[in-house]
Every structure is written in structure tokens, then in C-alpha cells.
């Protein structure tokens, strides 16, 4: 009975004034079709409610971190002419620090720019991807949180799956090889007497290999990449 639908919808939502609601109520006693509509409505409501489910608690961390990554670090206030005399000393200090940094970098070039001979195409790709990582401003993620979905890449007949994780305030790239293991570069460092794990530095990042089919790349502080590998059960 289509004529009954608008008042029934409002009636069921409790929207009708008392007099109209009473009239609909009385009508339901004598109209089987409308009474069926009410019963179907209530059953449909219970069915729809059964689809409710709580969100994964880790999601809040992931979303918070995604927003932080999308938000640039706060910029320093631009210098103004009025402030220039007061900041002149700071500027001179800054230039001196820049020169010192430049000299230091030049001095380190022979060591740091050691050619990554022996790096496989897969590892070069992992290192290149890790260069785009940014630290997380806050340390809100106590557990390892995936920041994106895994993606499979093909490099030099090697198939690798990469995913970015946040962990204790920083980010790292985790790569797993699906076809053949990662090869160890000639300049790799092995903290233990065994072949695994090994680490190697490439630019500002460290590559950590806890087992032959897994590489983690990110800014290394003592034990951080190893702790991430442990948290992800990759050791």
C-alpha cells in the first residue's frame, strides 16, 4: 500500500505528532499490509545492525601517521628587514656552520661515496625507494604500522614486494624477495660471525638483511632496524 509508506517511515522514526502517531497505531491493528511492512522494517533494521563491527585499533595509528607524513615540518619564520640586525650574528654562524659541513662532507666523500659495487638491481631499487622516506614527527606508533599496501616490483628478473612501515617514530622500507634471495654486497658488515644478519650503509640509510629474502632500509639508530625486523617476525 504505497500511500502508507510516508507516514510509516515517519512513524517508525518517531517523527509524528502524538495524535497522528496514535492514528497510525490504530490503523496498524486493522491493516495486515501495513503491519507486515512494520515487521519487515524491524527485521531489516536488525539485519543491518548485525553488520556493525569495531575498527582495527592499529588503524588509528596508521591514519595519524599518514596525516603527519602529509603535513610538512613547521617552517622557520621568514627573515624581515627589521629583524636582520638582530639575526646577523646568527647568519654569520650559519654560514660558518655551512662551510664546516661542506668541508666535512668533502673530507668524507672518498669513504661515503665508495662505489656500491656488487649491489644487485633489487637492492639499488630498495635503496632508491628508501631515500624518499620521511621521519615521523611523533613517536605515536609503538607497534610497527604499515603505512601503505604491499607492492610487487620487477627488477632485473627479480620480483620483490615492498611496503613502508612506521615504528617508534621513524619509517623504513621492508622488501621481501619472492623469486631469489638478495645478494650480499662486498662491503657488507656482519655483526656476528655468521653470514646473517648483515648491514651496509648507502647514503643516509642503512640496509639491514636479517635473512636472505628480506631487506629493511631506513635511517639506522642502534638496533632500530633489527627491532623492526623482530616486531614483524622477519628474523
Amino acid at each position, binding site marked *: 500500500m504505497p500511500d502508507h509508506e510516508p507516514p510509516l517511515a515517519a512513524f517508525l522514526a518517531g517523527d509524528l505528532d502524538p495524535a497522528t502517531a496514535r492514528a497510525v497505531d490504530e490503523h496498524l491493528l486493522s491493516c495486515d499490509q501495513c503491519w507486515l511492512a512494520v515487521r*519487515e522494517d524491524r527485521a531489516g533494521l536488525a539485519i*543491518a545492525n548485525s553488520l556493525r*563491527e569495531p*575498527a582495527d585499533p592499529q*588503524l588509528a595509528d*596508521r591514519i595519524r601517521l599518514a596525516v603527519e607524513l602529509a603535513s610538512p615540518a613547521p617552517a622557520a619564520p621568514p627573515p624581515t628587514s627589521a629583524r636582520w640586525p638582530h639575526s646577523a650574528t646568527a647568519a654569520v654562524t650559519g654560514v660558518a656552520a655551512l662551510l664546516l659541513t661542506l668541508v666535512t662532507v668533502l673530507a668524507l666523500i672518498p669513504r661515503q661515496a665508495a662505489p656500491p659495487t656488487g649491489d644487485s638491481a633489487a637492492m639499488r631499487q630498495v635503496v632508491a625507494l628508501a631515500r624518499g622516506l620521511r621521519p615521523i614527527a611523533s613517536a605515536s606508533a609503538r607497534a610497527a604500522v604499515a603505512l601503505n599496501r604491499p607492492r*610487487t616490483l620487477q627488477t632485473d628478473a627479480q620480483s620483490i614486494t615492498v611496503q613502508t612501515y612506521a615504528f617508534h617514530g621513524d619509517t623504513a622500507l621492508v622488501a621481501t624477495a619472492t623469486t631469489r634471495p638478495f645478494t650480499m654486497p662486498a662491503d657488507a658488515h656482519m655483526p656476528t660471525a655468521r653470514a646473517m644478519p648483515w648491514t651496509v650503509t648507502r647514503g643516509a640509510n642503512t640496509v639491514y638483511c636479517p635473512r636472505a629474502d628480506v631487506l629493511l632500509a631506513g635511517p639506522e639508530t642502534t638496533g632500530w632496524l633489527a627491532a623492526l625486523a623482530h616486531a614483524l617476525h622477519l628474523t
Partner: protein
Amino acid sequence: MHRRDRPGEPRTAFQDAALPHLDAVMTVARNLTRNRQDAEDLLQETYLRAFEHFDQYRGGSMRAWLAAICVNVARSQGRRRARRPVEVLTDPFAVAPESPAGDVLADVTASLDRAVIRAALDALPEPQRLCILLMHVAGYTAAETAEALGCPRGTVLARVHRGRRRLAQVLAGSGVEHA
């Protein structure tokens, strides 16, 4: 002007306003996508877009605003997906949620029921489906649903009424139990 470019306006204002509604928006996202991974991506894209356009938020219900963004993003992603070949994704680190011993049969039955109910919900006309999804699955009020979908509250009530009846009729013979 972009919100995040304004000095002195911390992103925490956005996070404080938007993150409490994560459960509701995730429920919307989960029911607009085919799997958990897609739902999480849709949720993330929704929040990033909301953050990007936070300066356009004019008060009112924050979760209705988030739901409106979520529905729009899902629609545009659906259009893009229709134009693209299928993307193969893997999830080597996914850990299956632990189920208490002895509850396996109940879990399987529940998931089968959910799959049947979800299919019935998906088969509803989109206006009815979105109204039911927001009001009865995600817990929005009729007013918030109207705000999110940009239609009068009375229209929302009429749509949920028709949709609920249709759900009950479709599932009446399927063996799905409901209270």
C-alpha cells in the same frame, strides 16, 4: 589558503576533531569496498583529503563531513578502477586475527551470514544502500546521514524504510538469523 600552510594551526586540531570518528568512517569504508585492504586505503585517502580541505569544513557534524568525503572518494576510485586493469596485490605480513579456540564454527557461520547480508545490502539501489549503511551499520543519525548525502532528512527516512523492508524480504528465505 591551505590549512596546513597556516602558521600556528597544528595538525593536532584536525586529528582531535577527526580521529574520534575512525570507527564510524571505517565502517562506511569497509562497506563501500570489497576487502579490508581496499577499505583501509579508502579510509586513509578519506582522512588525507579531509586534512587537505580542513579549511573548508564549516562546522556541523564532523563525522557526516568525513562520510561525505568517503562516499565521494569511493565513487571516484570506483570509476578509476573500472578504467584500469586489475591490480595484483599481495600482503605477505598480514596476520590472521586470532580466534578463540572452539569458536571456529561460530566464526565461519557468522562470516557466511555477513557475506549473505552484505550481498543483499549491495544489491539495494545506491540511495537506499548508502542511507542504511550510514544509519544502521555505521551508527549515524538521520540528520547526519542527510547532511552527508546532501538530501532532506525525510528522504533519508523514506529510503531506509524501503531499504530495510527490501533487505528483510530478500533475506527471508536465506536462513540468515536476526534478532
